[in-house]
């Protein structure tokens, strides 16, 4: 199972801008590198990251080879209501990672 790390504040005031930081463990192989025998290593990257707030997509990123290994994505969102933030990473070779975080909005 793919390892991910996400930081989301446990609670926030309504209307507050919260900062979210996400990390996914992934080699992000570019497809430009070669082995010692000269063969190209096939591309293996995360191509998409989506953040859903209570099922509504609030943030999405398309990633390419130029993103560093173990991609970090930090962004902000408005704390509108209590509920679940769901993070999904998807990529080459059927890579799929999921993380859910609860947030309490007062």
């Amino acid at each position, binding site marked *: 199972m793919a390892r991910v790390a996400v930081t989301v504040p446990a609670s926030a005031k309504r209307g507050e*801008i*919260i900062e979210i930081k996400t990390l996914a463990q992934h080699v992000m192989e*570019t497809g*430009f*590198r*070669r*082995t*010692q*025998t*000269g063969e190209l*290593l096939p591309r293996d990257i995360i191509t998409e990251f989506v953040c859903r*707030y209570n099922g*509504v997509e*609030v*943030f*999405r*990123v*398309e*990633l*390419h*080879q*130029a*993103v*560093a*290994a173990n*991609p*970090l*994505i*930090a*962004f*902000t*969102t*408005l704390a*509108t209501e209590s509920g679940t933030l769901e993070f999904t990473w998807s990529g080459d070779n059927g890579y799929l990672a999921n993380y859910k975080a609860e947030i309490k909005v007062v």
Partner: protein
Amino acid sequence: MTTRRRFLALACGTLAAGELRAQLDPNIQAKRKAALEAAISKVVGDAPVRAGKVKLDVPPLIDNGNTVPISVTVDSPMSAASHVKAIHLFTEKNPQPYVITAHLGPRAGRATVSTRARIADTGRVIAIAELSDGTYWSDTVSVVVTLSACLEDGLI
């Protein structure tokens, strides 16, 4: 039997075989420039890109091009009427210049995105913001890279 001399010759041969060949290509700069322009025009289309509104934060001197912290902030009220739709990031010298596209909306609260990129060589980093009114704004920063990503790590 592999002598030290044969091993060295072999190792040098494999080194030269990879990206080094691309490096020696006399048209490589022109090719990379064309690739960058193609990547930008694919995103922007025919719309003009103006400088301003965007603040691209990259260290000017990069020791290790494999992980370069980059953050982009756009001056925008992020309301339903006026917000940033997307932030695109490009690097000039990479074999593939497109880094990321972040899609955001009024629910982001603040138009800011941070990530870590690979940068292959000394050159420009370009951030382009797509606003809800259909205009494009950009910021360009020139960076110096001492240890490059992508190119010299051809051997594992």
